[in-house]
């Protein structure tokens, strides 16, 4: 740790030196103009004439400025030679004012409360609009809100700040991503292909492509995750939530749209800015496992013999906490340098970013380098061109993968981590069944033999050209070029964690290369005209096309001769193999779109928008490739009506309503063609018998068409008491039909799956966001709060079958993903008469007792045997036990500012949903082997649970049993209330007064400390001892109910697995402008 700090200090020092050089350079430039001065004084007051302290006063176009004192008075020098100086007065909550000095020596200013709300410009997709003309449900989140949370990914920063946007962490490794749902899920998905050991496609992946939002960066659709863009480069996010707003993205709009606007150059003085932070991340808490003595007792209770080595360790009182030995505090560093400037004709910005996050597991980290530049240039009076290019290289190192945490849980505590001579005890479980598990300490001691690295190289470019054809009519072309390449390298030598071999000839190496490119061309005609000063008409027309390409290849090698070679040279390896059929993929898809949008607004009171889009996609059956998406919306600014003039309490009131149709392209290319899987077989041992095999996986469908979602949205924007309280309420209802559904066929019908247009879902919900200025004192004290609350209720309305489809885990009237399992009602206790009456299976005291409530064949109420116990536990006894849809989400951020100090905190809650905890379950049968193998069988260590013994007749966990195998109904142990209220961030900053900085040529400097994830306020998951963090960290790993094979269902469940543990982070940072 100390070394790491030193290292970072060195790096910081190096950077500081560079900065110093720059500072000196600019100080020279600045001081040259600071020779002679004149002085201006004055007072700044509010509408009542009371002085306002802390108002910033600067000379326009410079960084020279001051702030008002406690009485609102100011005094400042104006350098001679400043031609026609203009003072700019600005303060939070008020509209900025400019005053021409014109030789005056005293200037008094009356500040007017800010109603900028309505005049703000909002990006709406293919253009911008004034906020007051907006007709759809759009949330804008500014960078200052996002930046409260230091993160490498803007989506992570968005968590809890936008109503209707539900973000679930999906990975805890450095550089991992989150999953986003806007207004819930709409689409049922299931496995579309048989996953192999190395297959990348999962149910969760399918779900993400089906229901995730469309990301658009500076107008160009963006694929993949936003890790590749430095959050410091982002100016704002606009989230289009309802169909009237997203319909302009037609076939990709159903999951909502997130418009990312990056920072661009501004005319005027060159501004340098530097943002940086340094911090450390710590494990919130280790998972609670049995210690040495407890583990010995646990094994005894399970009748599982201790190995001789364990007996010796027990005698020597050894109790190793493997988690403590491995987890480390990890540094986080971010440096971002940016230059913007320009003239009236040309504006530019350039930026560089370096981010590195260390992992709490040794040698895991994520590093990103970004270079970005934008240029906007007015070629002539009529023609404007611009470019934005974002270039990123990132490295994600995950030696040991995400399975280290569960591996650590499993290790016996009855083993010394080190040998008497101080070397690592290579095989701590000697003599046991799992004797070939190498010590996790080899992650540190032999790190050269472990490589797991993904490098991404991405260049994302958007260009535009704009021609003013006649007044009000513009032609614009947007061209997007996006290319990214991922190279995954891995090497696993002998004698290290995860390898299971001590032979060099068994070392493994692999290399995966994947390439993605996409081009987008958009032709836009934009027309705007105001008639009679009251009627404002706008038209946008679009013709665009897009092509995506994806190709990947994968090669593995066995028997690399030397660890140092890793995967750099496959030639000397003993054998090389090309990966399986899902590792070598070529896919292309095309999209052609036409869109028209008409906007009209009348006198700032009424506005309306109508859009129409047609999309054609290559992935659907010929003849069904095109579909059209209409949308209509209107808004009424009630406060601008005359009858509202007499109600001063209400400063803003706007009613919006809209309807639209959108869709998802959630099927993979070539899905309509049916597919043969490929396999291999060899007739005999010789090469002459080696053959490729084809297997029938899915049947063709010649009539696949678009699914569509139609949505209603009604919204109300309001502002009360001079906009001290502002907010919005949205209510919506959506219906999705013709869902592109991969359905599992009865196995006897000749192929596993096919796609159909089947199924309907609906969803509705409400979103409330309220922003308040709670206290605004004349002395500059200000306390503001942002609050949001939302919920979504999704439901399956119809399926491809007349009734519910338990085979796929879909139930009409239920949310899309539910838990369908036996209901655990406790543990069988000694002497329970049920033990003798239950005929199948026969059970014994100490085993899980589930509810017997239904007989074979009874499906619905009214069937014979429905609700009747028959003393047999059969799959018919399963029932819906819960789902993963929160009852509501809420976020609260609050900020207090006083005299340059600001303190902000944000809280986040998701309430009333279940999560699945796979590490208290164990797969009963079948080939998935998920869950926690050997849970409660005492073969391995595990979460410390309250287990049954004849003397501890608990109803929590069954009797551990070393010989009977997987506990009966083990899946029922894993369903936990996933509700939580968390403190997300605490951020304390100080703006060094401009007066101190001006002379150094610095226009603003803020230093801050922040804590991310500092504590959990309330969570049953934590209180019941499952772990430190209830936030789901992925999908998969969940297990089937006993005796069932619901293909795919467990893969869709939100799980909190024993992946990399949750961390909390503490940072120290500064934002500097000069």
């Amino acid at each position, binding site marked *: 740790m100390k070394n790491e700090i030193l290292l970072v200090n060195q790096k910081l020092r190096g950077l500081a030196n560079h900065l110093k050089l720059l500072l000196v350079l600019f100080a020279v430039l600045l001081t040259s103009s600071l020779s002679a001065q004149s002085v201006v004084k004055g007072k700044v007051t509010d509408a009542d004439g009371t002085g306002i302290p802390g108002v910033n006063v600067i000379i326009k176009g410079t960084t020279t400025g001051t702030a008002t004192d406690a009485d609102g008075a100011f005094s400042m020098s104006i350098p001679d030679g400043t031609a026609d100086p203009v003072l700019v007065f600005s303060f939070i909550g008020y509209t900025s004012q400019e005053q021409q000095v014109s030789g005056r020596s005293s200037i008094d200013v009356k500040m007017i409360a800010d109603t900028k709300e309505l005049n703000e410009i909002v990006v709406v997709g293919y253009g911008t609009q004034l906020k007051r003309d907006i007709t759809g449900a759009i949330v804008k989140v500014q960078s200052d809100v996002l930046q409260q949370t230091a993160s490498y990914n803007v989506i992570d920063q968005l968590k809890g700040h936008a109503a209707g946007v539900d973000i679930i962490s999906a990975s805890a490794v450095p550089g991992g991503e989150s999953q986003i749902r806007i207004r819930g899920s709409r689409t049922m998905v299931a496995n579309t292909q048989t996953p192999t*050991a190395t297959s990348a496609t999962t149910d969760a992946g399918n779900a993400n492509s089906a229901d995730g939002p469309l990301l658009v960066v500076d107008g160009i659709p963006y694929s993949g995750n936003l890790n590749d863009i430095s959050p410091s480069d982002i100016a704002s996010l606009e989230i289009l939530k309802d169909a009237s707003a997203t319909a302009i993205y037609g076939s990709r709009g159903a999951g909502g749209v997130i418009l990312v606007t990056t920072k661009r150059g501004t005319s005027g003085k060159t501004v340098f800015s530097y943002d940086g932070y340094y911090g450390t991340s710590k494990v919130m808490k280790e998972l609670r496992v049995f210690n040495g003595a407890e583990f010995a007792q646990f094994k005894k209770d399970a*009748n599982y013999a201790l190995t*001789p080595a364990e007996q010796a360790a027990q005698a020597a009182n050894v109790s190793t906490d493997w988690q403590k030995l491995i987890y480390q505090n990890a540094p986080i560093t971010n440096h971002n340098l940016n230059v913007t400037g320009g003239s009236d004709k040309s504006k530019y910005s350039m930026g560089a970013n370096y981010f590195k996050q260390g992992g709490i597991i040794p040698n895991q980290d994520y590093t990103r380098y970004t270079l970005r530049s934008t240029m906007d240039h007015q070629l002539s009076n*009529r023609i404007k061109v611009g470019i934005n290019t974002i270039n990123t290289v990132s490295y994600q190192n995950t030696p040991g993968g995400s399975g280290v945490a569960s591996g650590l849980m499993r290790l016996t505590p009855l083993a010394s981590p080190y040998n008497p001579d101080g070397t690592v005890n290579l*095989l701590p479980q*000697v*003599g046991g069944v799992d*004797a070939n598990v190498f010590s996790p300490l080899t992650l540190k001691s032999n790190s050269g033999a472990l490589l797991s690295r993904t490098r991404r190289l991405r260049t994302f470019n958007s260009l535009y050209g704009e021609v003013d054809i006649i007044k009000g009519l513009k032609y614009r072309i947007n061209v997007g070029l996006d290319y990214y390449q991922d190279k995954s390298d891995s090497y696993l030598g002998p004698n290290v964690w995860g390898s299971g*071999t*001590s032979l060099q000839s*068994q070392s493994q190496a692999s290399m995966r290369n994947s390439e993605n490119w996409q081009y987008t061309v958009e032709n836009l005609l934009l027309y705007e005209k105001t008639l009679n000063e009251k009627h404002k008409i706008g038209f946008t027309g679009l013709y665009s096309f897009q092509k995506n390409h994806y190709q990947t290849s994968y090669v593995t090698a066995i028997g690399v001769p030397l660890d140092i070679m890793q995967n750099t040279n496959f030639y000397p390896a003993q*054998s090389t193999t090309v990966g399986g059929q899902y590792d070598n*993929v070529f*896919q292309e898809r*095309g999209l*052609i779109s036409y869109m028209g949008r008409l906007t009209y607004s009348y006198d700032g009171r009424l506005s309306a928008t109508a859009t129409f889009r047609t999309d*054609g996609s*290559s*992935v659907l059956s*010929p003849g069904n490739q095109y579909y059209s998406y209409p949308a209509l919306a209107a808004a009424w600014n009630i406060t601008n009506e005359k009858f509202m003039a007499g109600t001063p309490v209400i400063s803003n009131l706007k009613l919006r309503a809209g309807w639209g149709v959108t869709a998802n392209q959630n099927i993979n290319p*070539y899905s309509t*063609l*049916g597919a*043969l899987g*490929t*396999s*291999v*077989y*060899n*007739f*005999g*041992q010789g090469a*002459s018998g*080696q*053959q490729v*095999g*084809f*297997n029938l996986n899915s*049947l*063709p469908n010649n009539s696949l068409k678009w699914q569509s979602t139609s949505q209603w949205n009604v919204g109300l924007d309001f502002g009360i008491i001079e906009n001290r309280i502002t907010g919005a309420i949205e209510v919506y209802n959506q219906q999705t039909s013709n869902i592109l559904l991969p*359905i*599992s066929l*009865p*196995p*006897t*019908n000749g*192929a596993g799956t096919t796609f159909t247009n089947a199924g309907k879902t609906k969803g509705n919900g409400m979103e409330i966001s309220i922003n308040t200025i709670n206290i605004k004192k004349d002395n500059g004290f200000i306390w503001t709060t942002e609050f949001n609350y939302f919920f979504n209720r999704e439901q399956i309305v119809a399926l491809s079958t007349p009734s519910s489809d338990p*085979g796929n885990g879909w139930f009409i009237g239920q949310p899309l993903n539910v838990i369908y399992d036996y209901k655990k009602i406790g543990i069988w206790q000694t002497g329970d008469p049920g033990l003798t009456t239950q005929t*199948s299976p*026969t059970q014994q005291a100490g085993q899980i007792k589930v509810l017997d409530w239904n007989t074979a064949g009874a499906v619905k109420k009214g069937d014979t045997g429905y609700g009747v116990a028959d003393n047999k536990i*059969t799959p018919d006894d399963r029932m819906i036990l819960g789902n993963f849809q929160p009852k509501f989400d809420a976020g609260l951020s609050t900020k207090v500012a006083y005299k340059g100090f600001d303190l902000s905190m944000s809280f986040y809650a998701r309430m009333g949903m279940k999560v699945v905890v796979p590490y208290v379950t164990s*797969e009963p*049968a*079948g080939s998935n*082997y998920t869950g926690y193998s050997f849970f409660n069988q005492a073969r391995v260590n595990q979460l410390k649970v309250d287990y049954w013994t004849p003397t501890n007749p608990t109803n929590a966990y069954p*009797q551990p049993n070393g*010989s*009977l*195998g*997987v506990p009966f109904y083990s899946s029922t142990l894993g369903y936990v209330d996933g509700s939580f209220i968390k403190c997300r961030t605490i951020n304390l900053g100080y703006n060094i007064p401009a007066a101190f900085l001006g002379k150094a040529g610095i226009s603003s400097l803020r230093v801050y400390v922040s804590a991310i994830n500092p504590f959990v306020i309330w969570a049953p998951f934590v209180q019941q001892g499952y772990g430190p963090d209830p936030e789901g960290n992925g999908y998969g790993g969940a297990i089937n109910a006993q005796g069932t094979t619901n293909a795919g269902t467990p893969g869709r469940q939100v799980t909190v697995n024993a992946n990399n543990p949750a961390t909390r982070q503490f940072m120290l940072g500064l934002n500097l402008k000069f």
Partner: protein
Amino acid sequence: MKQFRNIVGGVILIATMLVSNSCTDLLVEKPQSVIAPTAFTTPSGLLAGISGVYNNIRGQYGTEGFTVAQMAGTDEYLEGNGSSSYHRLFTYNGITAGDFSGGFSWYSDINALNGILKLGPTTPGLDSATLKAYLGQAQFLRAFLYFYLVQTYGNIPLHTDFITVPSQADAPAPPNDIYKVIVQDLNHAINNLPNTPTAPFLGKAATVGAAKWLLSKVYLTRGWLNNDPNDFTLAYNTAADLIAKATTYGLGLQTDYADAFNPANDYGKETIFVSDHSNDPKYDYFLTGTAQAGGLGINVTPWLGLSNLVSNVGVESKLDPTKIVADPSSIGPPVYNPMGFVSSGKLLVNRDIQFGRPFGRIRPNISYLLNQAFADRANDSRYWKTFQVVWLENAGSGGGGNSTLNGVYSGPGVQGTRGTLQCGVDTAIWFSDYEVPGAPQSKGSWPFKGIIATPNMQYGNLYPYMKKYADPSRPNQNDPSTRPFVIARFSEVYLIAAEAAFKGGGTMQQAADMLNVVRQRAAYRTGKAYAPGGAFGTALPATMVGDPYPAGITLGTAQAAVTITSAQVTLDFILDERTREFYGEAMRWLDLVRTKSLISRVKTWNAAQAGTLIQPTHVLRPIPLDQMLLVTVGPGYPQNPGY
């Protein structure tokens, strides 16, 4: 204005170009890395389709779940300690529709075969000889798959047309309709297939011999089903015909029973039909050294019957008489170590390539084997050729257990209170076939440096190893086997003939004659005496029985002793004979079901573990839950009774 016109004109021109270029191209799908079902209309597609079916057959045969299910819950096997997932199959305790799904995925193969049979004859570019070979393979495979399915589930759908339109409706067909298709397919296959394996279907893929073996077994099985003497006659005649023409098909018995399991003879004359594997990892789906265990069609048979010796046998192990319970196969409260075998001291053996990877799923029902099936272990050599009963010290002086891959094969090994065992020389663990007084540490008054595990000491983690499938060629002890899984051996043809004759398809003398061929071969022995150097101290000579004849027995006397008369042929005798001949070869469950003996044999020989809960309805496996749940159109799919 002129400029304006130019610009607009330019824009329109560009836009038009873009439209005309892209519209046609962008929306046309051109798959490159995936294959659509239309591939079945090409010669290479037909071949790949057949190969794909073979690959899916090995997705079951030789894999853990399928293989265990063919043996669990019979008279031959008890549950091993690692059986975890298969507990219910061993005990019949609450088997539900979700516990047994093996095989229904084969319907996609049946559909592919339907496609091959339908599209093959019209596929351009195929000469008639190649077409004939392809059709023969497809006919054999379709019969093979349907035969397994109809025996296992009884009520299954029959599809012989290529299904190309998805349907969510289906219904079972009468088993006799399915048998009719099977018989028809096999008769066609006999006409179309070559006599011996011919490229590209090398190894031991389907041939005329394989088709005749299968046809005789199909007739026999249908005979039992309908009690139809005509079928028994057909079965006997088909088997007898195959035996008569054995050399034509390159088939026959090995001289020594053990040679049938010698890896060098995997494709030898005794092997009729295999599910193949490869030592080329690409063609066998495994990555060496990755301890792959499931999910793909890898051959794990060498591990399934291996107990976890490395963790459970210390040099000072002893008996704790207070822990002995009466019945080792009890399904009662969990007892890890019912026989009171208490391990202590340094572990005697290392896990290495030779000593394998213990999966411990199934263990021999030793009481049935020693007292009934293999009661005559002097004249009949098959017990010794089936089980490995001796483990040599390989652990080095530090003691064994850790699975560093290299056993130590020379030098001093573990030192116990009874001396130091020499690696590669001294017996570390001996599974005696009788109760040895003084065991586990001594034989009578003679101290034994290693451990003697007697039949009464055996429990879920300590039992002799079924060695037929051992694969010493594996590079890593955690690697799967790359030997083919032998589905049919030639000796079965004799036993099919014997069973058919016994049921009226021939004379009782013919039944005895057929049995005697197999039994007299079993009398054959070779090899040197096993000499456990120093294991008993210095005085006691080695008396352990290895491959050679025990004192006073020769090939002649042994063959005479095992020869039976027609009066001795009973159904139970035939079933015992099948145990002796095919123990561990994944056919017991279906053998007992075919001969309607499952319930009686289980109740007689496996009373405590499987006999208490078995029901007459258990002779059919439950229709898989997927089938039940996914038939959502039309009438629901009927479940077999009792589930």
